[in-house]
């Protein structure tokens, strides 16, 4: 099991690096972040291969239409085991303030930043989506209702999102990885590798909820809660430099995500 712990650790380190790269001088370095994302992917595959040796691989080979079903069945295998999971599921805003009380210095350090960006991201995504994709109207509506007070903040950030000439439209929205929303997002995703990662991401979430019991550090909490947005992170690998402004708009506008730990959502925002 040591390799799983190792993989877990590497994943959390990678996430930290990706987050840090946002604030680094000189902009996001595409090469470094690509390498970090590759490590992240490898570590995740190793991590998952233990739990789902058969099932996961089968799930990964599924194409459109099936993956989400499998995802749901996988979830059933692993009933929510911790309060984290419950928090993740319930769309209550107050959760946001509770969770940041983590002992980790990093989390607290980034709390304000993350919180703000997370709200901003959700709203700006919703604005963008309503412009671009009618199939996600339900998503954007939900988001908007959840964060009515964020419009002013969002406007500041949504401008660069729109202005950025490099933005690709539909793929941004597939970041949302709520189980409910996945069917809508399916239409967004283009290719197989993305789907694979999405399936794996949902598995990761369950997986890490289990792992959370085993691990002692808070880091695992981050990954657990973060797990649902994993796919978005991985698929955003390549868009880093030009999507700097874009990414704030790409954050999952999912209800669930909004209640996640701001630290992890900040990573997702990237």
């Amino acid at each position, binding site marked *: 099991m040591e390799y799983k712990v190792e993989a877990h650790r590497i994943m959390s380190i990678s996430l930290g690096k990706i987050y840090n790269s946002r604030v680094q001088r000189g902009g996001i370095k595409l090469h470094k972040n690509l*390498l970090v994302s590759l490590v992240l992917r*490898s570590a995740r595959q190793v991590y998952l291969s233990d739990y789902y040796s058969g099932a996961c691989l089968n799930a990964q080979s599924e194409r459109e239409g099936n993956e989400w079903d499998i995802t749901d069945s996988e979830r059933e295998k692993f009933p929510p085991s911790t309060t984290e999971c419950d928090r993740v599921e319930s769309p209550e805003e107050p959760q946001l303030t509770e969770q940041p009380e983590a002992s980790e210095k990093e989390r607290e350090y980034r709390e304000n930043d993350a919180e703000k960006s997370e709200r901003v991201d959700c709203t700006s995504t919703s604005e963008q989506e309503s412009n671009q994709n009618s199939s996600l109207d339900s998503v954007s509506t939900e988001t908007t209702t959840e964060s009515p007070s964020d419009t002013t903040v969002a406007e500041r950030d949504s401008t660069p999102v729109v202005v*950025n000439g490099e933005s690709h439209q539909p793929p941004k929205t597939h970041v949302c990885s709520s189980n409910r929303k996945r069917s809508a997002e399916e239409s967004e995703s283009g290719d197989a590798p993305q789907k694979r990662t999405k399936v794996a991401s949902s598995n990761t979430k369950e997986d890490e909820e289990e792992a959370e019991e085993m691990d002692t550090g808070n880091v695992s909490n981050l990954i657990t809660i973060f797990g649902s947005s994993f796919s978005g992170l991985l698929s955003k690998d390549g868009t880093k430099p030009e999507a700097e402004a874009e990414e704030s708009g790409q954050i999952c506008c999912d209800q669930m995500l909004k209640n996640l730990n701001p630290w992890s959502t900040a990573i997702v925002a990237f």
Partner: protein
Amino acid sequence: MGEDGESTKINHSFLRDYVTEADVISTVEFNQTGDLLATGDKGGRVVIFQRETESKGESEELGESGEYNVYSTFQSHEPDFDYLKSLEIEEKINKIRWLPQQDAAHFLLSTNDKTIKLWKVSERDKRPEGYNLKDEEGRIKDISTVTSLRVPVLKPTDLMVEVRPRRVFANGHTYHVNSISVNSDGETYLSADDLRINMWHLDITDRSFNIVDIKPANMEDLTEVITAAEFHPQHCHLFVYSSSKGTLRLCDMRESALCDRHSKIFEEPEDPGNRSFFSEIISSVSDVKFSHSGRYLLTRDYLTVKVWDLHMEKGPVETYQVHEYLRSRLCSLYENDCIFDKFECVWNSTDSVIMTGAYNSFFRMFDRETGRGVTLEAWRESSKPRAVLRTRRVYTGGRRRRGDVGVDSLDFTKKILHMAWHPAENIIAIAATNNLYIFQDRVKPENQCEET
């Protein structure tokens, strides 16, 4: 050159780091004759050193000949800001390349992440004197005091080195520029960023040709980036670029305008036994250099340097382990970001020796004929002028000798990333953080160390 941490006498370590951060050398390059050596640093400055010529006969015996002294210093790039993307653009000089000399002036290209500039370095050692309407200080004379006319003459004056920007090649790159390379035709050069390579004409700044574009239609499909590019030293139509996947692509510009399809691709199949989380990172090529002959390629990835024959694509002809002992420590090197360090590699003038940097102020030289490697150290404490460079060893098992350094005692903050080898002689310039070391090989089997 820069100041070192020890001399600042400031107790606050953060302040010391701040002071010296801008002095960290980020590129070193000799010109084609080796008389000039240019260094760029993180603060956007370029310092040019000139080799002192000793006109007296027995120059080697005099010892002090051939020293490099500061010739000129100028601010090449300033911090910039991309307003559209709200991104800061670092002023760090990524690369300097000299143009072949055509007249008395010298030209060099310097680049940061986004903008390439052409600089003219010229000397002025004469000035006109004896104006009729101005006095010696330049003040306008009262015309009534002028009684006779004279012709101004050129009088010798103190040597002044002037550096002026002649061209600014801006807005050519969306991503970070990592390489520039001057073509053998003397008229064009290429600049490479993470996803694209552009070809410029030295006289034209508002246009460039895009010759390689590996940006996928959907950025989520991105799997590799360009890490380095160089023109062939003799054939003006050939260039090579390396990728983060460890492949090299040789492209021929005669084939098509857009060289997305390579003429040759050089890659070595991965050894499945060495697979780890970090296999992709350590296979990323950080530097590629053509040999002077144009027959071979030298590449550097994290743990090795490899020599490739242009005629053989299936694998390198020579592989040298730079610091194999780090393979078991990749995870901690990933944590402290050292695994992302981009080491450069260089050929000597005859293509018989290759050199690259490592950690702990060590650098490695490999003799291609014997296949043997040697570890040397660029460290002020152990280097005094005229001192012989001792070979060092990293202890990895077996009998431990005195002076061996254990892997755990290596200082990973002291990394030798940038270096240059004189084009004709055995003189090497090693950049160690903010210090520049110049080592010369004398006729006598001694190595002299000059440190600036």
